[in-house]
């Protein structure tokens, strides 16, 4: 096993001093090149956790280290893809300019930047749409643009916040396979933290699944996913191993929820 890229220790977040904690005692490591999924229910602190990981918010206790450096503001090595592509892409810029935006301070000729943009657009399966504006593309294509923008600066870690929750089921499957392909080939070595409420999606994509549950949110289980790669929508999803993993995770979340509702 290689060194952890991301170390999360004792993370706690309260939105007001006396208010309840949204997260408490969240501790985990992510190794380089790992594809980690974090599952949990809506309102369970997933987005809070992700915002803490990428330095958009400060924790009330605990630490996040990326490459051995304490994260206190958004680090250059991290990139994020949000659920709502219609808001995270800049609607006043065309596709090329959106994807080129992270390179605006790099001192290289524009032609080289354009080359990089075209390259990364090709990687996400988009060609010939550079001059279009985001609203002229389908939801799935817009999310591909957002992924391209996240990848263009070659981040070490890619954070995905429910990235496929706003698209239809067929597009979702395509985008899941895109993430798998990118992780296996185009940007090999990139570490991915993927937050989702979809247990099947988590098992299908990840090397390991963390279950975030309870109030305040805690990591209640870490389940390895030893499914062979490359994975394939129908074959992988119908394998007995896949089914037993997803049932195990469903069980973990359901039991937790049962305990929680009994306690209330």
């Amino acid at each position: 096993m290689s060194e952890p890229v991301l170390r999360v220790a004792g993370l706690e977040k309260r939105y007001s001093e006396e208010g309840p904690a949204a997260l408490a005692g969240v501790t985990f490591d992510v190794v380089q090149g790992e594809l980690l999924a974090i599952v949990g229910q809506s309102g369970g602190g997933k987005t809070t956790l992700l915002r803490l990981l990428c330095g958009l918010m400060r924790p009330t206790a605990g630490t996040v280290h990326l490459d051995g450096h304490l994260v206190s503001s958004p680090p250059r090595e991290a990139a994020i893809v949000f659920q709502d592509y219609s808001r995270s892409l800049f609607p006043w810029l065309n596709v090329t300019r959106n994807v080129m935006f992270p390179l605006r301070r790099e001192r290289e000729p524009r032609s080289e930047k354009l080359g990089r943009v075209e390259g990364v657009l090709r990687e996400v399966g988009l060609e010939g749409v550079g001059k279009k504006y985001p609203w002229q593309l389908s939801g799935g294509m817009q999310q591909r643009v957002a992924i391209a923008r996240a990848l263009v600066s070659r981040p070490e870690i890619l954070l995905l916040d429910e990235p496929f929750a706003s698209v239809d089921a067929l597009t979702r499957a395509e985008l899941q396979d895109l993430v798998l392909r990118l992780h296996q080939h185009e940007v090999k070595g990139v570490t991915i933290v993927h937050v989702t409420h979809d247990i099947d999606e988590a098992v299908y994509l990840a090397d390991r699944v963390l279950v975030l549950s309870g109030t305040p949110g805690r990591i209640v289980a870490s389940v390895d996913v030893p499914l062979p790669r490359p994975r394939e929508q129908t074959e992988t999803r119908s394998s007995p191993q896949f089914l037993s993993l997803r049932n195990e995770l469903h069980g973990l979340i359901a039991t937790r929820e049962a305990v929680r509702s009994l306690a209330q």
Partner: protein
Amino acid sequence: MTTGARRVGGYALGVLVFLAGLAVWQLWAGAANPFLVPTASEVAERAWDVWPTPDFLSEVGQSMKRYVVGFAIAAAIGIALGLLVGASHAARRTLDPLLECLRAVPAIAIVPAAFVILGAGDASRIVVIAFGLCFPILVNTAEGVRGIPLEVRDTASMLHVGRVERLARIYLPAALPSIMAGLRIAVSLGLVLVIVSEFRGETNGLGYYLKDQESRIDYPALYAGILFLGLLGYVLNRLFLVAERRLLAWHYGAAGE
């Protein structure tokens, strides 16, 4: 009926109502005191004579100069302060009481004071126009910035957009639909303030022209001036809408309009 035919029908109806309005004016003016209220045909005839004269065009030029300069100053100050107040809680807390107080003052109310301080030249008039137009632009800009979704701010943070860059490259375009709404108000209000500011002082401009015709008891010429202002306002609004459609093509596209 096809859509095209319906549209033509709609335009025809609009033109018909317009002509009916002119007819009512013509008949009413003829029936009332024709000296105090000239008929539409009389005014049209007079407008035809007066509008192309160098004297009249020079009044138009004076008014437009004040309008454009006042508008530009108001836009610069309104957008800059609006971005600041919208983006920063500290700036908002610091500036809000002062701005709210100034905003409550009707621009027309500062006309005498402006003339006392700056005299009856261009400066006092431009100050009145800029003062009055600044607030609708400022308020709309600030509201636009405050309404920018969290995802846009988060994206900017993740892409390491610095403070000044954020105002210019993220907040300004993101708030542009709202800023344009403020500017649109200013386009119409600006004309009001030009005319009002030119009612004072024996100088020039369209406001002075109207007052002058009143004192010369040349009512057809007075109405020709009013008619011209109506047309000018219409043209300015149209030009603004064209500019807005171009600048906000991405916005209207995204909103599915």
